[in-house]
């Protein structure tokens, strides 16, 4: 263990991978030194674990209807109680983590790269490329996110995939904006001039030099936005346009539980708390990542 530690803190790395490992280790140490970030990270890790192990952890099937067991309050028999169809809420929340994770991952892997690419290309090449790409971005930005997502879902039909698609379509323009602004400052720097003078092509410069510098602030931004994405998905679910019953989705669960809120508080509150916790987790993690990754702070 001691040898691994000295290897990871060595001043003179001996290979490409060694250098990378040291860099990763130092970032990790900086990240771990902030307790709030660690809490955020634990929440996000817990979300992943619960989603992965939902079938093992859930005491019942999330869609097993038992009308004799309607509205049982949280207790020994059902840890989080049951809902209007007698379904176990704990099981539904655990399976709901899968839906949430699915949405988050899908939005992150679609919207962020698209925004990053559009922004850096527009920023680096400038001229008409910039004009065309940024006007398209402006058009998307001109609509409120939830309204645009609503329109998409209304056009494509309700369902979890379409909700994700709608969110991703509305999530990339702000990323493009940020990436472009950063690219504009990076573009004029000497290290870009230097690589241009080595005969590097535009594509090589954007992919190898500009994007790596923009991507850390992008990771931060995406993490911070995840709370918003979860809430939008929950909002779509709440409006009945996201996940369709009987699929367990936290927003939809809050939506149905709302009707019984005064008499049976747990039906809406438990999934509400799940949304709150996961959003908070992503926000805390995002704040911590910003401190570690954002070059402007160092």
């Amino acid at each position: 263990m001691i040898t691994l530690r000295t290897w990871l803190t060595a001043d003179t790395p001996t290979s490409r991978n060694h250098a990378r490992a040291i860099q990763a280790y130092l970032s990790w140490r900086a990240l771990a030194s902030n307790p709030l970030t660690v809490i955020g990270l634990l929440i996000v890790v817990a979300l992943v674990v619960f989603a992965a192990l939902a079938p093992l952890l859930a005491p019942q099937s999330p869609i097993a209807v038992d009308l004799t067991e309607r509205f049982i309050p949280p207790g020994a028999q059902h840890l989080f109680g049951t809902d209007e169809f007698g379904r176990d809420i704990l099981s539904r929340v655990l399976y709901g983590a899968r839906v949430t994770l699915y949405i988050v991952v899908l939005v992150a892997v679609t919207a962020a790269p698209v925004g990053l690419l559009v922004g850096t290309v527009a920023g680096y090449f400038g001229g008409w490329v910039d004009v065309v790409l940024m006007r398209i971005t402006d058009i998307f930005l001109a609509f409120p996110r939830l309204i645009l997502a609503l329109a998409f879902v209304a056009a494509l039909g309700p369902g979890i995939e379409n909700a994700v698609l709608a969110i991703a379509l509305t999530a990339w323009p702000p990323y493009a904006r940020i990436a472009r602004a950063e690219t504009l400052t990076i573009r004029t720097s000497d290290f870009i001039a230097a690589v241009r003078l080595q005969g590097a092509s535009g594509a090589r410069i954007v992919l190898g030099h500009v994007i790596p510098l923009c991507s850390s602030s992008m990771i931060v931004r995406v993490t911070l936005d995840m709370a918003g994405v979860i809430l939008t998905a929950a909002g779509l679910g709440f409006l009945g346009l996201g996940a369709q019953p009987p699929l367990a989705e936290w927003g939809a669960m809050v939506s149905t539980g709302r009707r019984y809120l005064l008499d049976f508080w747990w039906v809406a509150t438990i999934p509400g708390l799940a949304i709150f916790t996961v959003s908070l987790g992503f926000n805390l993690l995002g704040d911590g990542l910003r401190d570690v990754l954002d070059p402007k702070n160092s």
Partner: protein
Amino acid sequence: MIEVQNLAVTFGEGASAIRAVNGIDFRVAAGETFGLVGESGSGKSTVLRALSGLNPDWTGAMRVDGQALDRKRSKAFYKLVQMVFQDPYGSLHPRHTVDHVLAEPLTIHGMLDVDRRIEQALAEVGLGPAFRFRYPHQLSGGQRQRVAIARALILEPKVLLLDEPTSSLDVSVQAEILNLLQRLKRERGLTFILVTHNLAVVAHMCDRLAVMNAGRIVEEMTVSDLRKGAARQAYTLQLFNASLGYDRAKAKELITFA
């Protein structure tokens, strides 16, 4: 080696256009070190950027090694002419290791033997193999500038354009870098164009120099004339006097040349 005729560079268009360089001519022989001296806004760096291909908005004619230069440069040009920048903190990518910085030009030009070339390039600029996998933030200003020089030389160019290569370094580090450049020039028979505002550096490094002001060459002279203070133009003389240090009487007589 280098021939510049009637070079003009204009920034912007229409009424707000600024003529940064206003029709200048000079020649640099192979193996020579030519100094371009001037104050900020004189256009000296702009000349270098136009020559290097970083700024395409120029008119006139430029030739390097007998080849006329176009707005857009070929890959072969970049193997012939390389540049070292002023700010060693800004000229290295903050997320790339020294190894990555030096490997990139080799990959672009499809050169083989990457490991050997990188180790040799580092050795030539006085950095041991221990520096190979470090990031720029783990290096001092002088070490970064050595990496920048190694990057410029790894393509084995014949011409090196130096844009204030030591002006953001401490004087003791400046001496090391200037000595390094002199040695590399001797060993490889390089041709240098050195842009600087520091007449003492020009006197040490160059054979001839041109003094620029407001986009024009005011005077071209040899370094031995410069050392004697034998300037024909009042502007050069004023610059010369000011670089000797503070002098109360002379400071009050300074005038602005346009």
